[in-house]
């Protein structure tokens, strides 16, 4: 039984992350505390670098990754926002950094509880974005994350999100693979595209003129390549552990004969699954689609999963004031039809089974509704 934060730390340990720059922020701090204790006791061979800000953390991640070491860190909320400038630098330099975000609503007003606006602020930063639904998925995703991000067809950083407190501080049974298993699955990182060795001098982070757009198009291509890599890595992981996490990009639940469905991401999906089961016992044909990756955005997979569903709703634990639910906006664009957009759970506000039941009863309208 370990917490989501413990699972994230275990992921880094099993992946043999070598450089761990860090800065404390609630509700992430237990991750770096756990790693600090393992390094101190000799259970984990890594350098623990306490930095002076999250901006310095991501800068250290980028520099150490540029030199070809495997790196890991974790942050939350305001910390993730302070990293923003360097998020783009890290993806632009094509550095396969793994960063866990323990989601937490943004200030002001200040809150400690979870929603997804912190992650979605980084939506356009060129990072792969993965949402986890439980603690096992956190551990699995961190280890798989390195294999995906370091794939030569991808070479992009990845952010792995777990919901603050609901997962980060809650203990769940988690199967921890052995080091031997993971060493076979995940080879050592030896990049060819970034080298900081005087034997092979390379200038990194220089200026470009007209070529800028060419480099951006390569990032886009890498993001597209990542889809099949994620699917393949999940399949390999499933063979090894029995856990494939859907097809990698989305997890469909009771959608085969569903006439109504809700799209959601993160740990709330567990309560929604329970609600689906409950309503199905009453004969209602409801289902759920869990979004695992926000980037790459799994448009084809969403269309495949929801094309026969009559009424679709999207739960957004985020808001772009002046536009609407961020995920709903993207889902509408990809489906080419209206969906009911529900803004819920901001700042960790409880949703619960009763409200999900109510939400299922309010589908079929192309409107935005706030569930308080």
């Amino acid at each position, binding site marked *: 039984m370990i917490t989501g934060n413990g699972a994230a730390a275990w992921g880094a340990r099993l992946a043999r992350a070598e450089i761990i720059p860090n800065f404390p922020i609630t509700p992430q701090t237990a991750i770096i505390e756990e790693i600090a204790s393992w390094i101190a006791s000799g259970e984990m061979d890594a350098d623990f*670098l306490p*930095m002076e800000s999250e901006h*310095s953390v991501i800068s*250290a991640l980028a*520099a150490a990754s*540029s030199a070809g070491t495997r790196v890991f860190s974790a942050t939350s909320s305001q910390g993730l926002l302070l990293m923003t400038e360097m998020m783009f630098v890290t993806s632009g330099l094509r550095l396969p950094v793994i960063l866990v975000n323990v989601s937490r609503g943004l200030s002001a007003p200040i809150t400690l509880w979870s929603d997804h606006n912190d992650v979605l602020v980084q939506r356009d930063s060129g990072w792969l974005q993965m949402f986890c639904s439980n603690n096992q998925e956190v551990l699995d995703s961190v280890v798989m994350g390195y294999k995906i991000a370091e794939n030569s067809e991808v070479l992009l950083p990845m952010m792995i999100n777990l919901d603050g407190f609901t997962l980060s501080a809650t203990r769940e049974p988690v199967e921890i693979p052995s080091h031997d298993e993971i060493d076979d699955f995940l080879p050592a990182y030896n990049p060819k595209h970034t080298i*900081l060795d005087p034997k092979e*001098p390379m200038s990194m*982070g220089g200026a470009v003129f007209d*070529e800028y757009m060419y480099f951006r198009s390569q990032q886009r291509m890498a993001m597209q390549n990542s889809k099949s890599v994620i699917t393949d890595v999940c399949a390999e992981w499933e063979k090894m552990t029995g856990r494939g996490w859907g097809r990698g990009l989305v997890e469909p639940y009771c959608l085969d004969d569903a006439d109504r469905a809700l799209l959601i991401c993160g740990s709330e999906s567990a309560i929604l699954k329970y609600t689906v089961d409950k309503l199905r016992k009453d004969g209602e044909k409801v289902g759920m689609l869990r979004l695992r990756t926000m980037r790459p955005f799994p448009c084809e997979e969403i269309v495949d999963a929801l094309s026969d569903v009559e009424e679709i709703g999207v739960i957004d634990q985020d808001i772009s004031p002046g536009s609407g639910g961020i995920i709903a906006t993207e889902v509408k664009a990809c489906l080419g039809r209206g969906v009911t957009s529900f803004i819920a759970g901001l700042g960790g506000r409880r949703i619960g089974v009763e409200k999900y039941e109510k939400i299922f009863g309010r589908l079929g309208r192309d409107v935005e509704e706030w569930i308080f």
Partner: protein
Amino acid sequence: MKTPDLKKLTDIPMEDYLVGGHVACQGCSASLGLRLALKVLGKDTVVINGSGCMTLLPVYPTTPLRVPWLHLAIENSGAAGTALYYALRRKNINANILCYAGDGATYDIGLQSLSGAAEKNIDMIYICYNNQSFGNTGHQRASSTPRASYTSTTPVGKVEAAKDMPAIMAAHKIPYIATACPSYPIDFVNKVTKAAEVKGMAYIDLLVPCPVGWGFDPAEGINIGRLAVRTGMWKLYEITDGRFSMSYIPKKRRKVSEYLRAQGRFSHLSDADIGAIQVEVDREWDALEARGYEYELGI
């Protein structure tokens, strides 16, 4: 610490790791400083660059650098250098780590990151190439800008004095701090050698006269640097393990007007203004003389 023993220009190694043909301005002392530093540091050096003028040395698909070079952003050279120190150790790469960042990137936006690296006493050489303004964006005010200097954001002259960055570094108790100027190349390269040999962090504040921002003929860059030192407006000194010592004491200091009147950024000053600056400089040097030019900082 081995005493560096370069005595004349021809003692400086011929090898270049910053080669010609790059796009720095004519008369740029910052690129000269980097060239000199790399000559003595040699090929086993990795450079971290904070955004600024020197960031435009490598322009895709070319680079004038024959040593590894990493530019990330303006404010994080200290953090990047810290991580690089540990990463190179893990890769069994034995190399000097040189952070080469401007004064805006050092005194202002990057101070937090630099302080973090200094507090950890990371074994690296941090050279602040100091043109006393945000030079690459066109000469705007920085906390390194001297009092009275025109910048594009202090159109009537800066009111405040420059921040004493070496003193801030001294407060971090790092083992070696120096000021320098490429107009005194032997002094500078010997200081770079000391900085490389010292175990822990070394900080060198390198005055680099900027023809574009300061307003002088590109051919005059070296002379302007010499005048800064000979008038006593830029002091060459070292702080080794907390002990301050002057590296060069002008026998007879030139009048500050010689330095100030040679630059467009001070052209708005009246004779009275210049007289006031002279009084200030004289007072500083009187205090230095009273202390014997060498003393324990006691911090």
